[in-house]
């Protein structure tokens, strides 16, 4: 397809996001408060443990992981569900449906501009600060390349999950509850709030079969070169799994959306 129209949307997304730069500062401030909480919570968890290594992670490992997870969250979270449900409720979605392109692409490329902006404004600075402060705790090598690729996969998986939930809001019209449930599930089962190694064995087996882990667990552990995520020990499986989920979710959201929009166009909305 013609890339020109999609690039234009992304460009506009970046310009639009930059207009609200105050929001970025507030986000950074909020992160600091959240991370202070995380720091003291995990410090007491480690203090109550007899060994300095819990589930194969030291205190430093855990904090680095969680700080980067927060930065990644800021970069990946586009509040797509809020945006789309608001458009549906106000009827503004009609204007988007009148654009000569599929709604899924229109939304993706518009919000991709946000992604790019927040990547440079929040993720990259956080990464550099963590990198300097921890003095070499983050390995630097080809893992950075795999990390970036894996973040791309995470972005798509996250987008498709959001889009799927947004589609549900075509039916429910009120989305607050659904969105809260979605956010909780994604943040918990993706390893954004608690690293997956801390999960009970049985739950972990289930969570590893779900797509959510592709969003935070996979890229972060590839970056930190954890066991099972290095090129020698299963990184390819992890990247492959991301790819499989991308394709599967892409097909699923496409079918679900087309079916739902048809239903809306038949019954009106």
């Amino acid at each position: 397809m013609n890339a020109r129209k999609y690039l234009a949307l992304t460009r506009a997304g970046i310009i639009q996001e930059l207009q609200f730069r105050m929001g970025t500062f507030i986000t950074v401030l909020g992160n600091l408060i959240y991370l202070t909480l995380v720091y003291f919570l995990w410090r007491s968890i480690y203090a109550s443990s007899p060994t300095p290594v819990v589930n194969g992670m030291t205190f430093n490992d855990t904090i680095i992981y969680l700080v980067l997870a927060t930065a990644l969250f800021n970069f990946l979270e586009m509040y797509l569900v809020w945006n789309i449900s608001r458009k549906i409720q106000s009827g503004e979605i009609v204007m988007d449906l009148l654009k000569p392109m599929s709604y899924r692409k229109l939304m993706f490329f518009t919000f991709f501009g946000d992604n790019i902006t927040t990547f440079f404004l929040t993720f990259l600075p956080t990464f550099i600060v963590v990198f300097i402060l921890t003095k070499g705790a983050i390995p630097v090598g080809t893992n950075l390349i795999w990390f970036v690729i894996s973040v791309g996969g995470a972005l798509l998986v996250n987008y498709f999950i959001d889009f799927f939930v947004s589609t549900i809001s075509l039916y429910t019209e009120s989305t607050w509850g659904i969105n809260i449930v979605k956010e909780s599930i994604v943040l918990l089962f993706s390893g954004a709030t608690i690293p997956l190694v801390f999960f009970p064995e049985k739950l972990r087996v289930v969570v590893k079969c779900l797509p959510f882990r592709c969003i935070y667990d996979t890229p972060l552990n590839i970056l930190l070169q954890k066991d099972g995520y290095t090129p020698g020990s299963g990184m390819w499986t992890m990247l492959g799994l991301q790819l499989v989920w991308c394709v599967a979710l892409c097909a699923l959201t496409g079918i679900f959306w087309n079916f739902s929009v048809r239903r809306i166009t038949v019954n009106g909305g």
Partner: protein
Amino acid sequence: MKKEIDQAIVMENVVKEFKVLNRHEGLRGSIRDLFSRDYRTVTAVDNISISIPGGQIVGYLGPNGAGKSTTIKMMTGVLEPTSGNLIVNGCVPYKNRTKNCENIGVVFGQRSQLWWSLPLIESFRLLKDIYLIPDRQYDEMMKLYSDLVDLEPLLHKTVRQMSLGQRTLSDILAAFLHDPKIVFLDEPTIGLDVSMKAKIRDLIKELNRMKQTTVILTTHDMGDVDALCERIVIIDHGRMIYDNDIDHLKSYFGSYRILKVRLPGDIWEETVIDESKTDVMSVISDYQKKGKLLDIKLEEISTEEVIKKIYENETNERKKISGIDKSRDNTGIAV
């Protein structure tokens, strides 16, 4: 530039029904509604057939809730008709929504398709890329726009800083930007002041003339109709009740005129003349027989009154028309 397809829109027996949940009142009713399967069918558009040739400006009128927006949404491909055929620019809109969207432009008076926090020029550039408008065509269009309206001060303003009038104007320019074959204007002059309305009417008229664009206009402002529409379609309760040009509309209830005469003592007297029964001259000579006439005014009945009459008439289930002068008193608008 002439458009190849001579019929821009063809509708044949188009019907649109909605399934609506029967809602109950109160808390208990709301809870019951959660599990209710109690639907009723509402017919928003009932068996409408129209064909609109390219290049025409058609006024699509009807009281609130008559089914105008539903029809427009079907024509744009956002809604699927329940039955009947609908062809827009030679294709079925809801089946090829994306393709259909390349050839139409839409302005909903209450919404904007522009990017809220971007300057207008950025929105235009974005639309240029989205609709894949060639550079030359874009430049020509921008030149045409700056000839027609005072574009320069608008271009660098963000849409959220604009007044309603400026925003509507910008939205209309945006809708015509990719030189679509059809532009749908849904109440474009709603909430605008008199001079802005005039500006927007001129703009629509010019663009229609120069680009041969078909324009489908819904409005409640009869000034729009008088200024723009060659043809008028009126629907009510989803049914088409009138489809003809504006001159025929005035004679819809027979040809009426209003005669005002000034009698000695500075008294104005008004008579509504039904030209099928009598004519103006004989009424004047009747007056002259009674006494001296100081002044005479002869006025046409306005579109507004005729339309009002049609709406009312439809509601009264074609009750006998009991003199058009009655509705005049109610409107309170000087003719």
